[in-house]
C-alpha cells in the first residue's frame, strides 16, 4: 500500500497501483485514456469514502502525514513571516511557532503548533508535543499583538502537551492554565483554527479566542481515543469505539457549541490538495477576522467570555433538578 493512503483508503490504493503499472507500459493514446479514467474513478471513490467517514477514520485523516500544517498555510495565506523565538524564561520550544506576518495586507500575529513533515523535522518539532516554554512563548507574543493592537491567528494541531519529566518540572499545567486565563482578557481579536489534531489541554492552551474555526476533518478531544480506550475499556485496541463515543469530529463539536464554524476541506481531505484547503480556509478566516475586528474591544471581550461561559447548557447538557 502506498505510504500516502490510509488503511480505509484501500480501494484508492488499488487504483493507484493500477495507474503505476500502466505508466510502465509504452505510451499510447489508449494507455493515457485508461489512466485518465482511473484517475476519475479515484476521484469518485474518494468522494464516496469521504462523504461518510467514521470518527476513527477522521482521526486518521487529522493525523495524516501529508496534512497541511502551519508552514503550508504560512506559505499560501501569509506574507513575510518573521518568527519570534523563546519564552525569555527558559528556552525556545519548537513545537509551537509564533511570529509576525501579513495577512491580506494587514499585520497579524500568527501562533501555532508544528508537527514537522520529515523525520528530522518531526524530531526537531517533538512531533508537535509542546513543552511549557511553547505556551509561555505563545502568550508572550500574543501580548505583543495586544500592545500594538494586531489581530492574532492561532493554528491548533497537536497530539497533546508533552508528557515528560521536564515538562512537569517546569510546570506545563501552570503554563496552560495561565494561558487560559490570560487569553480570555487579551485585548486583540483572536481567531483560532483547529487544523489537525486538537489534543486536549495541549490544544486548548492556545485556543481561547473570539472565533474558533475547525476544519472539516480535524478532531478536537478531551483525550486521544487510544488513551480513552486504555482507561475506560482497559484495552487500547478499542480506540475505534472510543473515537465514536468521544464525539470528537467537527460536526459533533459544532453541535455541542464548542466551536463556531466548520471550514470545508477539498474532497478527500486537505492533504490531497493543500492549495484548495488554503483557499477555503482563507475565505473563512478573512470573514471571521473582519467580523470580530469590527466590534468594539469591550464588547468583543464580553462576547468572548460569554461564548465560553455558555459551554455546557442548562436543559441540554445538564439540568437543575431543584427547578425541574
Amino acid at each position: 500500500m502506498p505510504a500516502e493512503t490510509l488503511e480505509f483508503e484501500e480501494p484508492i490504493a488499488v487504483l493507484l497501483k493500477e495507474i503505476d503499472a500502466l505508466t510502465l507500459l509504452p505510451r499510447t493514446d489508449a494507455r493515457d485514456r485508461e489512466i485518465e479514467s482511473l484517475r476519475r474513478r479515484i476521484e469518485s471513490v474518494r468522494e464516496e469514502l469521504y462523504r461518510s467517514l467514521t470518527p476513527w477514520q477522521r482521526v486518521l485523516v487529522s493525523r495524516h502525514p501529508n496534512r497541511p500544517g502551519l508552514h503550508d498555510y504560512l506559505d499560501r495565506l501569509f506574507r513575510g513571516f518573521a518568527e519570534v523565538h523563546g519564552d525569555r524564561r527558559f528556552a525556545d520550544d519548537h513545537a509551537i511557532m509564533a511570529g509576525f506576518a501579513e495577512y491580506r495586507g494587514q499585520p497579524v500575529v500568527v501562533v501555532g503548533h508544528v508537527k514537522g513533515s520529515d523525520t528530522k523535522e518531526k524530531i526537531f518539532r517533538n512531533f508537535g508535543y509542546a513543552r511549557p516554554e511553547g505556551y509561555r512563548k505563545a502568550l508572550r507574543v500574543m501580548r505583543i499583538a495586544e500592545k500594538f493592537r494586531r489581530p492574532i491567528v492561532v493554528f491548533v494541531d497537536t497530539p497533546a502537551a508533552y508528557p515528560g519529566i521536564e515538562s512537569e518540572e517546569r510546570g506545563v499545567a501552570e503554563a496552560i492554565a495561565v494561558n487560559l486565563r490570560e487569553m480570555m482578557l487579551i485585548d486583540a481579536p483572536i481567531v483560532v483554527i483547529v487544523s489537525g489534531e486538537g489534543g486536549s489541554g495541549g490544544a486548548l492552551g492556545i485556543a481561547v479566542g473570539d472565533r474558533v474555526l475547525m476544519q472539516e476533518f480535524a478532531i478536537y478531544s478531551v483525550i486521544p481515543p487510544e488513551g480513552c480506550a486504555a482507561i475506560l475499556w482497559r484495552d487500547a485496541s478499542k480506540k475505534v469505539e472510543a473515537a465514536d463515543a468521544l464525539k470528537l469530529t467537527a460536526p459533533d463539536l459544532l453541535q455541542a457549541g464548542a466551536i463556531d464554524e466548520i471550514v470545508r476541506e477539498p474532497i478527500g481531505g486537505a492533504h490531497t490538495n493543500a492549495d484548495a484547503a488554503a483557499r477555503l480556509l482563507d475565505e473563512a478566516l478573512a470573514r471571521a477576522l473582519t467580523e470580530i475586528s469590527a466590534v468594539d474591544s469591550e464588547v468583543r471581550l464580553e462576547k468572548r467570555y460569554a461564548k465560553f461561559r455558555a459551554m455546557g447548557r442548562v436543559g441540554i447538557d445538564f439540568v437543575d433538578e431543584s427547578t425541574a
Partner: protein
Amino acid sequence: MPWFKKTRKPMAAPAGEKASRVPEGLWVKCPDCAQIIYNKDLTTNLNVCPKCAHHFRINATERLRMLLDGEWVEHDKDLVSTDPLKFTDTKPYKARLKASIESTGLKDAIIVASGAIDGQPAIVASMEYGFIGGSMGVVVGEKITRAIERAIDLRQPVIIVSCSGGARMMEGALSLMQMAKICGALARLDRARLPYISILTDPTTGGVTASFAMLGDLNIAEPKALIGFAGPRVIEQTIRQTLPEGFQRSEFLMEKGMVDLVVDRREMKAIVANALRFMGTARPAAAAAMAGVEPAVPIVVTEPASQA
C-alpha cells in the same frame, strides 16, 4: 550431601478463616507506617495519621467541615449531567452517574458552599474524588463558574479544594471547555482583586491542574499529594523509564516553584484564614485609600507539623 533436609514451612495463611470479633471499621491501618489507628482518633485528628502524618483522603463534606466555621449554605446542589454524548464504554455513563450519586449522596463531583472561615465570609468549592474520580464535567465546570461569579457579586474570596483525576472523558470536548470557562471566570475574579486560594490535595491531575488548580493567588498543597498534568504511568510510557521517588508529589512541586506552600491538614484552616485576612476583599478604590496603612494582621506562615 546435607545432613538435614531443608523443608520450607508454608507461610501461615492469614487468619481469614477465623471470624474477627472486632467490629468492622473500628480500626484502620495506616498505609504509610502500618500503624493501627483507632478510627475515632483518626477522625478527631482530621484523618491524619497521628504517628506518621499520612493524610488519608477525605470526602468533600469532611473537607468543608474542616475549613468552615459551623454551618454553611450549599449552592446549586441539584445540577445533574444529562449525559449529553450518550456515552457508553464497558458500562453506560448514565449507570456510572447513578452509582456515584447513590454512593456519595451528591449529584456530581463537587460541593459549593457559602460559609465563614474564622469569621470571614467565603465561597468554598470542594471536589469529591468518590464521584467518578472527582472528574470535571459540565456540572463541575458550571458550579465552579457560578461560585466564582457569586463571589464577584458578593465581593467574597473563593477557595477551591481540588481532588480530581482531571476532565471527565464521558462528556467529551465539553469537559475540556470547562477549563477555559472556569479560567475565564477566574480572570474576572482576578481583575476584581478578590482572593482565590487553591488547595491541592491527593490527587490533582490532568485538566484540573492545567486550569484552576494552578491559578491561585496562593497554591497550597497537602503533604505528599500527587499533583501533575500527565499521570505518572503516561510519563513512564513516554520516556520508558521509571520515575524518581517523590516525583509529582507536593514537596517536589514546591521545590520546582509550582506550589507556594505545603501545609499539614491540621494547620490548613489557620493558614487559609490568615491569608484571607492579609488579602482582604475591599474594593480597589477602598484598598487604594488604605495604601500605606499597616495591615492589621500580618500573615503568619507556620511550619507544617513535624512528620516524625
